[in-house]
């Protein structure tokens, strides 16, 4: 049962991710990304990390993607301008980078380690993905990154206010 659910939503998340980069229409791309985020949230539920799953949907699918969609709709992009072109320089560079990344990955890990097959999965640690577990990690082991992120967000908020004020005058 769980395996079936896993394969369905793993496939959906990969399909959604592929659709994000293949659609010409930016709104369709954004909605595909929502599908990916939702499917990943289901995978978190299968790991019994309900809190992470709920936050994933609440923050990413529910808030950030709405703002994305909002902006994309305002920009009114023309699908023709976004048409795929294989002669594009950016495309060639990204193909090169992907090849480089995967070669480096396999060279560093070795084939067997890169694709660990079979065997029972290691059990998730106590309190994995629960409110208590995440909270404890955030305020002990990862306190510094957490605070730094807060400072970054604060800086972004101040930047937004500054830009909005300048327009006004």
């Amino acid at each position: 049962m769980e395996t079936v659910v896993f394969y369905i939503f793993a496939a959906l998340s990969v399909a959604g991710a592929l659709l994000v980069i293949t659609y010409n229409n930016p709104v369709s791309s954004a909605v595909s990304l929502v599908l990916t985020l939702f499917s990943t949230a289901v995978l978190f539920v299968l790991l019994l990390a309900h809190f992470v799953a709920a936050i994933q949907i609440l923050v990413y699918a529910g808030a950030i993607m709405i703002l994305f969609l909002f902006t994309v709709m305002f920009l009114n992009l023309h699908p023709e301008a976004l048409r795929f072109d294989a002669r594009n320089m950016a495309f060639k560079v990204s193909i090169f980078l992907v090849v480089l990344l995967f070669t480096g990955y396999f060279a560093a890990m070795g084939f067997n380690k890169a694709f660990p097959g079979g065997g029972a999965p290691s059990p998730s640690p106590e309190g994995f993905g629960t409110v208590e577990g995440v909270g404890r990690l955030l305020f002990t082991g990862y306190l510094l990154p957490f605070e730094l992120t807060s400072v970054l967000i604060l800086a972004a908020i101040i930047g937004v206010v500054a830009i909005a004020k300048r327009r006004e005058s």
Partner: protein
Amino acid sequence: MVWVELGITLVKIALLFFVVLTLVAYLTLAERRVSAFMQDRLGPNRVGPFGFLQPLADGVKFIFKEDLIPSHVNKPFFIAAPAFALVTALIALAVVPIGKGFETTLFGLLSAPIFVKLQIADLNVGILYVLAIGSLSVYGVVLGGWASNSKYSFLGGLRGAAQMISYELAMGLSIIGVIAWTGSLRLEDIIEAQSKCWFAIPQILGCIVFVAAAFAETNRLPFDMPEAEPEIVAGYHTEYSSMKFAMFFMAEYTHMIVVSCLVVALFFGGWYPLPFGGWFGIDIDKYWFLPPIVFIGKVLAFLFFFIWVRFTLPRFRYDQVMNLGWKVLFPIAVANLIIVSIAILVLQNYGYLKA
């Protein structure tokens, strides 16, 4: 045993669907009758006694109306948007506990009695689940407005997105006080924590913010910016007809039921009948049907409150809506959080609340 539990869950889902959709149908009638009463009219009273068959007639009419899909729309999203709106509203109800539950052997079919909870899914992050699903419901409005490819629909969709995101913040912040007090995100734990005193009394500020934000989240008057008739025709569902329009309509009423359940569970004691004193010694494990009656009664009272407010207050202007959300409700929610945090510390210090 697994199959029995699965069967019971399926029965509960079917029952919830039936009850909620019937309630939605009768809410439309209630809205028209109550508004008529408030405006000294009669309202629809021709179909059946007191107009009780009117929702049925409306349903038949909706189904048999021509289902227009204008040629200029983005067809996949145009069709998906109303479904998305209705589904997200419906599945949010899965974690609402209307009572504790009861033990049964299914009329002697089972050897050992099993405990049936009056709730479909008992999630330990229940309240976050409702908020998460609620935040997804914006897509129905936004995509519906965008896919219609008309100026008024688009304006309605964008207004809906901006408004719902703004008020989601105030709403989320207003319930942190409740969560901090309870120390749990499970709705059942939150209700149990109110056995001595409803949260509406110590957290009156949070309660006010939550109710105001709830009106905005459901796009009900005085916050119905996305579909303000005098300004943008009918907003995001201007281009919709027949059952697709009805689905948007049903989504709005289902959303009302969801937020009413939330207000009752978070601030008005859930299944506890009076603000103080719990059940006065009545054994609710034995009389298990009493809590659902109290809970549903309160929800119905709040649904009436929604209708009452709609026909009492005029619509806000758009900038007033934004100002109210960001400059009034948000600071009040922060103030509520600070007051409640201090209160929790004081109560814990004197041993009235478990640390």
